[in-house]
């Protein structure tokens, strides 16, 4: 595991609900869809990358490409494909990034079947800040109709003994935070100390 960006640990994020999520019309937006417990019940991924940093890097990757990011929290499911697909259908560009509290991430597109995806990052223990930046960047490039090289995925045979059970536990906890019947809500990220802009 590589280290997160040097200055990261200071930053915090809180999410402010601004109302029901709506369908976007701007073709230059990517919707980032957060799972029920992201930056709420949980504050960091399975390998302790702070959710503030995850979000900041995803958004930075999108912004660097000249695309805007919009945040949505999905409350009635903790299924990554469902979260990402819901967001894709709300995205003006049709592109979304879905993310679970433990870090598992997926880039989705509105016309794809729910169980499919553009890019999937299933090994949450191997995702660090630079990877989240690249995921954001790729999502934005898809939104622009470009064809980025897929973010290289890594593999670690020993992830099983170390992380398999914790991943299952986090998964169960996330399920506990589901609020059945509540539609997706639009949220705003308010970053804590350490930011300049």
């Amino acid at each position, binding site marked *: 595991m590589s280290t997160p960006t040097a200055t990261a640990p200071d930053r915090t994020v809180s999410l402010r609900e601004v109302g029901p999520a709506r369908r976007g019309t701007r073709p230059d937006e990517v919707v980032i869809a957060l799972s029920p417990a992201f930056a709420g019940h949980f504050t960091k991924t399975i390998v302790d990358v702070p959710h503030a940093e995850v979000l900041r890097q995803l958004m930075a990757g999108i912004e660097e490409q000249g695309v805007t990011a919009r945040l949505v929290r999905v409350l009635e499911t903790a299924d990554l494909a469902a979260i990402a697909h819901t967001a894709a259908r709300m995205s003006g560009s049709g592109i979304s990034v879905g993310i679970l509290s433990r870090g598992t991430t997926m880039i989705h597109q509105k016309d794809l079947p729910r169980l499919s995806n553009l890019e999937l990052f299933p090994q949450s223990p191997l995702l660090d800040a630079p990877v989240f930046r690249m995921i954001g960047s790729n999502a934005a490039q898809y939104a622009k109709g470009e064809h980025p090289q897929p973010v290289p995925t890594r593999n670690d*045979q*020993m992830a*099983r003994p*170390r992380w*398999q*059970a914790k991943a*299952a536990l986090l998964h*169960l906890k996330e399920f506990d935070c589901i609020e059945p019947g509540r539609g997706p809500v639009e949220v705003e990220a308010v970053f804590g100390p350490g930011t300049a802009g």
Partner: protein
Amino acid sequence: MTSTRPRQSLRTEILESRPVNLDGFVEEWPEKGLVAMESDFDPAPSIRVQDGRVVELDGTERADFDFMDTFIADHAIDVASAEASVAIPSAEIARMLIDPGVSRGDVLAVSRGLTPAKILDVVKLMNVVEIMQGMQKMRARRTPANQGHSTSARDNPIQVAADAAEGALRGFAELETTLGVVRYAPLVAIALQVGGQVGRGGVLTQCALEEATELELGMRGITAYAETISIYGTESVFIDGDDTPWSKSFLAAAYASRGIKMRFTSGTGSEVQMGNAEGKSMLYLEIRCILMAKGAGVQGLQNGSISCIGVPGAVPGGLRAVAAENLVASMVDLECASGNDQSFSHSAMRRTARAMPQMLPGTDFVCSGYSSVPNADNMFAGSNFDTDDFDDWNTIQRDFQVDGGLRHVREDEILAARNKAARALQAVFAHLDLPSITDDEVEAATYANSSNDYPLRDVLADLKAAQSVMDREVTGLDLVKALESAGFHDVAENLLTVLRQRVSGDLLQTSAVLTADFTPLSAINDPNDYAGPGTGYRLSGERWEQLKKLRHVTSASNPETEVG
């Protein structure tokens, strides 16, 4: 993190750096099914039979059965004996399992009527030594065996052939492969088949792929059996896997209809990992899988958590549950390929301990995939044991006088087999006009350890050739012809004999393997007859002499030399 911590003792520092602390451990959460086998949320045993039909199962009325309940009630449980069997106190059944005076057959007469909750109730009473004792008696085949993984990180067929030959020579009764690049499958499956028959005639091979291709390779006689047919313990997870007990039963019959040996795969932890354990313990759900497999009429099961081993491995009593699930498969008369096939721990001590409940009593296949290649080449994401562990495994067999299915083989024999396998494959490729295998590759295969030790192949040419193998409908018969015409008469004869077995169907029976002289050995003609000390399978005679050999053993007659 950089913050200052309280001072640590030097001993703690050493302990912190031990590999076992890289493993993950979690607390139980029984409400969600994150618990090995002791949960208040598992159902209590019950059964009611009316008009030859189960109308209540473990506290659920027939109208409320989910499809697992329905399938188990209608196919797995013997209605004639069910009420009587479930009425027997669990402690008494548990005692039957360990009592040498009660035969395997006597236990089966009871177990065929048991419900999932009742079986759980029985094994919950047993500690790990009792579970091992039960396994020693309930294993279907008298003679234990082992299975190897023979794969290549580069999907290099020459490597697979050479490692298959060495693996077969070392004793694996079955060899399994899979691919990085799926389109390589035909060439790698051919390599496995040819290499396996060089090492020891009668080794059975399989190639794990999606159903259609796997079945096709089997039907063509390029592979001999299949085991990656997954089943799950809850209805919702089963559906997530896009199957039902009925679709899987249909598939089981499809394999048998082509004369191909097959077993299902399941294991503790898969349901909770997929988030739908429905609040039941891992072992309870696995018992449902085992009974579903039984009801489908499949001859055996690969279980022992398998790819989810990190989940039971992280909770209290998890490995006891894993040992128990193997026992349950055996006590309902299924062949059990008992796991130990996936990377499990950073700790060598834990890796070894994990295998003892299977290795010491013996199972039908102690590992359902001991990596007979270095783990870096293992395309099943790593096994609990790999080639580096061969000498340790052989030593443990010798220490405890147990048969774990392998043996030490002298270097010259191994080199000869690897060389011959590579040459045989070279001849087969030439005969089938596949991209040639150079003498340099044969030389590399003879002495190699991993895929890095081989010259690179022209992958494009290989993939085109792999497609042509499918297009030209190359079959096992073509391999036999190729081997025969190139002068590898013995290998050709071995392969033909394996193919002929398909016509007889003998390998379809429970726990069947082929011995080196091509005798099918199954639970029918090699039934486990354990009846206490001095009975059952005993490591003795010629086999024990084989296992006494290690790489370095000082000669008693001349202590200045080594024997072997």
